[in-house]
């Protein structure tokens, strides 16, 4: 399974590389946006047994990179409540950061598709570090990287403001299994320049 991801990545880069337009105009940072986003994150697969869906909030800096490609930098927070059977601590604080690119394919307007890297930092809400049972690693800091794919759907645009929906499929490189989450959020974006 792991190999398939990597070979898909190589193929993507190969195909994209050869199909890329040569930019004739300098678009880089020609537009800059700030956005606030709120929504819900849904643990998927095995980790559904560990934590419950959670609300999240995040801020975003969004900028034009190429003609139809935008860069994004995000920082956010979510509090994941542990499932009711788990009594060692009630929840986990999670901070996350993401960097990536959104691209607007002409045949998909107005939806943008994106990819990027994620980093999450997690720490339990309480818990006893001396108790060596399940969850103890979270009583100290835990962090891990991963990747995501996303879709961005602008719904409303008014002068410098835009409102829309972001949907992410996030794949974190944890052990003993990888962790997946679906994130759906509503954003309000303001163009700064």
């Amino acid at each position, binding site marked *: 399974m792991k190999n398939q991801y990597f070979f898909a990545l190589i193929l993507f*880069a190969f195909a*994209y590389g050869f199909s890329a337009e040569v930019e004739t105009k300098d678009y880089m940072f020609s537009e800059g946006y700030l956005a606030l986003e709120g929504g819900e994150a849904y643990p998927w697969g095995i980790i559904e047994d*560990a934590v419950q869906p959670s609300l999240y909030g995040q801020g975003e800096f969004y900028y034009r990179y190429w003609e139809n490609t935008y860069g994004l930098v995000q920082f956010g927070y979510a509090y994941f409540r542990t499932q009711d059977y788990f009594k060692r601590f009630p929840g986990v604080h999670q901070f996350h950061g993401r960097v990536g690119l959104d691209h607007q394919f002409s045949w998909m307007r107005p939806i943008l598709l994106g990819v990027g*890297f994620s980093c999450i930092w997690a720490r339990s809400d309480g818990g006893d570090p001396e108790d060596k049972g399940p969850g103890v690693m979270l009583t100290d800091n835990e962090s891990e990287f991963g990747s995501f794919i996303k879709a961005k759907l602008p719904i409303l645009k008014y002068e410098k403001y835009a409102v829309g929906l972001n949907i992410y499929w996030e794949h974190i490189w944890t*052990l003993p299994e990888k*962790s997946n989450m679906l994130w759906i959020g509503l954003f309000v974006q303001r163009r700064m320049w």
Partner: protein
Amino acid sequence: MRIFLLSLVLSISLIHAAIPVETEGMEPAISSDGTYLTASPTYFFDRPSLMAGIHSQSELWSPDFLTKRLLVDRYSVLPSWQIQEPSIWMQVGNEVGDMIYHDILTSSEDRPVNRTPMLEAGFRSNSFHGFWATGRFFQVDHFSSNTLRINRKTAGTMEYSLFGANLPGFSTGYAGLGYTKDQTEISILAGKEYLWLFGESGRWISALLSPRIQSQFHYKKLDLSLVYEDVLYINKEKGEEGTRKEWSGSLYFPYTDCCNSNKFKTGAGLAFRFVNDEGDTYFGLENDRAFWAFLQAKYEPIKDFTVSGHAGMNEKDWLIQDSIQYSLKKGTQTHFLFGVQNILATRLNPMGESYEYFDQDTISLSTDGLLQLYQVKIEFNQEWKDLQLGIRSSGFIEKGAETFDTTGFAEKKSDDWFRYGDVSRINSWIRGWAGEIEFSYKYNDLFKASALVGMEHLWGDEERFEVEPSEHWLEFNADWTINKTLLVSHSLHYRSDAQWNLRHPEPFEVPGDWFWNASFSQLFPKYGLTLSGTLLHVLSDTTLEVPNGNENRTRFFCAIKKMF
């Protein structure tokens, strides 16, 4: 204009960048063209392809290593105190595989070994009338899980680093000032550093350098460096403690035209160390000092024919390394090179420690006699428009190769072994042959790829080789540069089995392995800004490459850098 030049330099340097590593000096941990075995960021066995002799590259003294770090008896780029270009940067990474929410579902007996991070942040200011300031904090905690339990007992604490509790191979912080103008560069840095040194015994030895002060002076054709280190060695488990105050440095006149002829260039230098040891220092330097005086010469009597070399000596050792090289170019597309190289030396690294003290044993790190090494090398390169072919081959014979006479072992814990004995020689001839073929292809500035296949075989008293190197290696590289501002690079590697013979009671085999590296970099040339994310050592089996070392795991790091 300045911004344009900066952009140009950044674009050129990054467009041709290969896979980046966590920090300079970590390259051996992701290389396969030869034999590269990693125990920690402070210990690599690095023997590039077509290298003559059975030693690793960092064991042989060279003028190129004058300002590198001397760790016991080998040179190392890490921990690097080299001055960086004017910029501000930050990097963070992790060995892939923390559990996060899986921890809640995993019992302690099924819990995988903790994965460890890396951190780096630094800056160097722009010049103000030639003056600048710099500061850097960095540590690579990767390659520290396997040694954690033993090293915790040695250090007596988990807080043996500037940040965190993973007992990393090195943890360094320094700051300093400098002056650069015209042909003058002066710098002085001061900082604190935690190090784990890998002894010839196989032990990890803790060293706290506080302070470490490094000064460098460059003016036209003169380089001076002076370093002061106040080192504290501790072993809390044994209740031992020792201190070393060391002054070291070099005076170096790099190559310059000699004798009114631009065909003859010479250089010269002097390297020195003075130490004052008290208590249990684990290492010893004969007479508490070492120095090395050397000359370099390069002579090109006719075009494309070069004779070069360096020779040095001190009161005990001497070393001569010379080479003759003939290069034949037919048009701009065909290039043929023939070279021979000789090394004669009483010791590979005459600046290294003389002794290691282990239990009641004194391990001598030098030996009597002479090393002789003779190498013949040929290279052929052919270019056809966007395609390039390179064929390289090398053969060598060596007598008096340095090795280790292991006289016994002590087991520290399950399958961690310390050895007794002394550095010794193999006084019989060793022969080696290696060959390599490389294809590369370039499509405009958009895409380039290369494929490399190599093999090597050695004949001799293999059982006495510290490392029997890999016999086959493969490497595929491909780099895309999309719209001149997005770089996608990847490399796929294979290295065949290698084997340690003298650091373990049984031969310690390092199984052959495939691994994959990939990197994505976003460039903002006009702003001097780079963002990158890099995956290293993916798809591989997690293997121990050095006895008593740490496993080489899949890692990811991301970096941001703003050039001034």
